[in-house]
């Protein structure tokens, strides 16, 4: 399996607040990594460092063999294009309808023509079950629908890896399933994914590896079976017992 992302001793501080204290990890092509951990542990910061939305303080992030921390801002746009990102709060462009949300970046960044971009967008909307909403504006969609559109929007760029930051946390419980279903299908299609989530069921079923993050570093890594059935680290055990008690 080819290495897609390799993180070495990644550190990030906001002023004096050291949020990431040295993270190491490898994401192989086609793998699904699920990152779990307590609130404030640095999961979002880690994810945002991966596509340089946040600039790391030190360390290396190798993406397909290229060290991103050494690249100038202009080159980073080319890199981000290959890393799709899905946010907790969807962040659909509120000044555009669904179709334009999906075709904007392919046209602007990849130079696709209108017809080409629309054709692909329709396919993707079909795939997330929202083809009939192509002319709707984001504000008229439910949270679950918005998040599915957001996933389709990221996929429209044909990314090599997809980053998810708590994609279901802002959803009403009855909508969580529809989004997880889309993500599950995506995983089965072979997409490389890094998913921050509190959905332990999803982690168990879909993850190839689970990373437990706490206090700015990865306390424990392993298969779902290892992490959920036989956690080694005290912090992991503590976290899981609290989560499962809910």
């Amino acid at each position, binding site marked *: 399996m080819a290495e897609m992302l390799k993180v070495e001793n990644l550190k990030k501080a906001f002023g004096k607040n050291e949020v990431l204290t040295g993270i190491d990890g490898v994401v192989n092509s086609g793998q699904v990594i699920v990152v779990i951990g307590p609130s404030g542990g640095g999961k979002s910061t880690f994810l945002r460092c991966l596509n340089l*939305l946040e600039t790391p303080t030190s360390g290396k992030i190798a993406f397909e063999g290229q060290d991103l921390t050494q690249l100038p801002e202009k080159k980073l746009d080319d890199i981000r294009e290959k890393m799709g990102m899905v*946010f907790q709060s969807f962040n659909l462009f*509120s*000044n555009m309808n669904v179709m334009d949300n999906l075709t904007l970046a392919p046209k*602007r*960044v990849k130079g696709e023509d209108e017809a080409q971009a629309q054709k692909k967008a329709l396919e993707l909307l079909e795939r997330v079950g929202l083809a009939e909403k192509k002319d709707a504006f984001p504000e008229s969609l439910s949270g679950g629908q918005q998040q599915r559109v957001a996933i389709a929007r990221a996929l429209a760029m044909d990314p090599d890896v997809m980053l998810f930051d708590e994609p279901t946390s802002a959803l009403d419980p009855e909508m969580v399933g529809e989004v997880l279903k889309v993500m599950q299908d995506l995983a089965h299609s072979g997409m490389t994914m890094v998913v921050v989530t509190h959905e332990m069921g999803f982690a168990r079923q879909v993850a190839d590896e689970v990373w437990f993050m706490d206090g700015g570093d990865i306390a424990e890594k392993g298969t779902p079976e290892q992490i959920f059935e036989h956690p080694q680290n005290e912090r992991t055990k503590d976290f899981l017992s609290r989560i499962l008690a809910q």
Partner: protein
Amino acid sequence: MKLKKISLWLTALVCLLGLFAVFAPSGQVQAADNSLQRVKDKGTLVMGTSPDYPPYEFITKVNGKNQVVGMDVDVAHKIAKDLGVKLVIKQMDFDSLLVALETHKVDMVLSAMTPTEERKQSVDFSQVYYDAGQAIIVRKQDLHLYKDKNSFAGKQVGVQTGSLQQDLAKKQMKKSHLKALTKVTDLILSLETNKIDGIVAEDAVAQAYVANDTRLAKIDAKFDLGGDENGTAIAFAKNSGTLVNAVNHSIDQIKQQKLTKQYINNAGKYMATNTENKSMFNYWSYFAKGVGYTLLITAISVVIGIILGTMFALGRMSRKAILHYPAVWYIEFVRGTPLMIQVMFVYFGVGLLWNNIPAFFAGVVAVALNSAAYVAEYIRGGIDSVPVGQVEAARSLGMSQRDTMQTIVLPQAIKIIWPSLGNEFISLIKESSIVSIIGVTDLIYQLRAVQAATYRGVAPIAVAMVLYFIMTFTLSRILNHAERKMQHG
């Protein structure tokens, strides 16, 4: 960090003072006297005047066109003819006339100006070309109450700001309460509405108003006048000996041939045609021109203001100090000073470097630069209120900062900014009226002109007010309509 900020502010202050230092000394430079040669070389003699003072200078319609006429204009024509050059008339507020001389915006000032000692400190004067006594204008029904200046103890007396009459009244009517206004027309209005009890004015002026308004009468003021304190002369920039000599020569002829009498008769004829029909309809072209200019100034200023304002807003939001701090200074400074001073600074201050800066251009530039600072803050507020998630989503798709700004942030910000931009547009219609002080012929300026021409105070004000309202009301309807369309589109 704090120290750095303070030092940046200090730099800003020093730069600003430097700016003034550049302008300040140039006023005092004593060049060789080439005043006459300069006028002959350029072939024009530029006269500055405040045409609201019949019979000396006022505006009337000649062959359907508004024109400055009056005794002073005839005198100036005679001088220009003697010098073999073309006369150009520049109109501005009386208060601005001497500054215009110092900054070489005009070659001479003929505006019924009396050569007082104070004025002689800053400008040169020709010999006196016309001598008139001083009168006090009163309401006709009160005529029996007054004999001369001493009858006004404890009364309210009006004078024109910066005029000889103001000086005289200050010194010789110590028991009266003085009220100074810029325009004679405003003084007349104050008198007719009982706000003041008398107006000290030159006899010829008093005569003009009394002859045209049956509610008014005049008495002799009986001031103690010494020498030159009585009469009107032509003002020049300091150190203009050669030009003054040439002009004195023309004045000699005017006196010998008793031309002033003929000039005053001419003025009287114009005044009579002016007052033949005092209906506001007769002056619609004045108002139309004023509305046109007001709209033009506003429209140009809005466009420039939005373009510059966007640049300043982006500058202020930039993380680069070289863009950020100048934008911050500019915005704070402009918002912290009155538009009126900015208009005067651009016209007179910048005019020191660029001599022939047209008043209209200076006015538009000042208003646009002023508006840009306010627009910048609206735009910054609008951009700030676009959620960061929108930007992050765009960036995560590989879109550049510029693309993100253009396709995501600005379109969303515009919706938020639009109402404030509309308000700015509307308030510019009103605030641009300040450019009338440098002689831009906007609606306020035309209102003054109609007042001077018709001897009517209130009616022109009412017409101008209604016109302003029609403009702002129509505009706000249009903007509301556009806003509704945008929110649904």
